[in-house]
């Protein structure tokens, strides 16, 4: 469980160049949740998730992971980063080792695990992202395709055996098929274990696919927080933040505005189709 209390963050505080990123964020993310974190660029999303594993120390307020204050003087940073993993944007750019297996082992080695444990973690992580350790383990990460490199980077984070996985725009730059595969992978990882998933994205369609709960940040504050359907039903509020809603949901809103009695809290293509068919049948 991750809990923040009145989190504030100002970059370069006390200088003429200071910039406020967070201005009082209090929220709780429960174990096993699938959360979509959305908001316009500069709303503080990236700053917020970096406080979750102590990469950024907030200027005010603190973060509790399983009830432990991670900014307390004696907090074990490494253990926190093991529990709360963060995959940055374009993560394939962080690969550096000669082989895929060695790169994935970087995290577990840093945790000081024994060699056998490291090896089994590497195998597990590569399996989890759909790469066969026998085929890929000994290859150089730099000979792989973009999509494969990204999965190696994800494996590198999964090898920490985290309980929370934060993904910052994980599908950016992938083609439609690559995107769909990566989202399926996230679903699969969540279903496999009791993994909490926090997804930062600009794509409302991705949020609709992955998240059961949506948190909307705006100017460093939580603007909305609730079940995905409820948040997307507030199309006008989202539009005001230049965020929009999935296109299929937009169609439903448009029909409702034209006087057709459709429900607007539907997200998937199938749901939208059935709802339109229902209304047309009774129209």
């Amino acid at each position, binding site marked *: 469980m991750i809990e923040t209390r009145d989190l504030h963050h100002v970059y370069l505080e006390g200088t003429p160049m200071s910039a406020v990123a967070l201005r009082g964020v209090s929220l709780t993310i429960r174990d096993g949740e699938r959360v979509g974190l959305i908001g316009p*660029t500069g709303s503080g999303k990236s700053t917020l998730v970096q406080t979750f594993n102590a990469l950024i120390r907030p200027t005010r307020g603190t973060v509790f992971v399983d009830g432990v204050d991670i900014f307390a003087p004696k907090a074990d940073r490494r253990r926190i980063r093991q529990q709360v993993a963060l995959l940055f944007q374009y993560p394939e750019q962080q690969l550096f080792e000669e082989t895929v297996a060695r790169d994935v082992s970087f995290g577990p080695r840093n945790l000081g695990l024994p060699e056998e444990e490291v090896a089994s973690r590497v195998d597990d992580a590569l399996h989890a992202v759909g790469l066969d350790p026998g085929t890929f383990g000994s290859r150089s990460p730099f000979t792989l395709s973009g999509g494969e490199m990204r999965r190696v980077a994800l494996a590198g984070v999964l090898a920490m055996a985290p309980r929370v996985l934060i993904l910052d725009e994980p599908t950016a730059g992938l083609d*439609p*098929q690559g995107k769909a595969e990566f989202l399926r992978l996230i679903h699969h990882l969540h279903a496999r274990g009791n993994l909490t998933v926090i997804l930062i994205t*600009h794509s409302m369609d991705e949020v609709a696919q992955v998240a059961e709960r949506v948190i909307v940040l705006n100017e460093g504050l939580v603007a909305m927080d609730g079940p995905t359907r409820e948040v997307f039903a507030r199309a006008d509020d989202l539009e005001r933040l230049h965020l929009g809603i999935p296109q299929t949901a937009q169609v439903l809103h*448009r029909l409702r505005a034209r006087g057709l009695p459709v429900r607007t809290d539907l997200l998937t293509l199938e749901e939208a*189709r059935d709802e339109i068919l229902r209304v047309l049948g009774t*129209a």
Partner: protein
Amino acid sequence: MAALDGITLTVARGEYVAIVGANGSGKSTLAKCLNALLVPTEGKVLVDGLDTRDPAAVWQVRQRVGMVFQNPDNQLVATVVEEDLAFGPENLGLPSVEIRQRVDEALRAVEMEEYRHHAPHLLSGGQKQRVAIAGILAMRPMCIVLDEATAMLDPLGRTEVLRTIDRLNRDEGVTIVHITHAMDEASLARRVVALGGGRVVLDGSPQEVFAQVEVLRTLGLGVPPVAALVRALDAAGVRLPGHPLTVDELGEALHRFAAARAP
């Protein structure tokens, strides 16, 4: 390995074409062939009658066909916006008065006048790409090729860039070749060309191309969400005329459909 495998394609002056294809379909290679950054191993590319294989014509080709790349950071050379805009015209050896005039015009065309003296690294992604577009406009090209130029932008930046190219195409008659794998962006073009395995697989109006759901799927592309919904409704017996592609079009079409069925 053949990245392109026998492509025959004509883009007329003033067109707005989207070229779509999955990673590895050859679309980036094709883009680089359009302004002589790559020369085809077989066949030829003619730009305004100039053969890109002719070394003497290379600079004229590059003046005529400008290119915006994917990463907004890796194509701006100067530390000040207006200096960057001047880079292309300076390479063409134009007199300084003319360069100044073109820079002013280009800044206006992308609505970045107020950022004239800014440092590029302080701009947003969308603004950087608009500066890149302006840098090309200052060379007075016939055609701008955008090689996945929106892939790294947030939705706001994407909208900015798409609005800019649409206006340049409509108002200034600049030919636009927009290479992308975002299907909703492709649907904004007047013509869509789908590549697969280094060949042209589909070529037609967005309506025609996005009606080919199965073909697009085998190319690893999918269709814009609205087209997918139209397709699903179609399969369930709701046949809408005119292949709606946007939320507005579909809303309108469904509204008509409902009105026609009402007693």
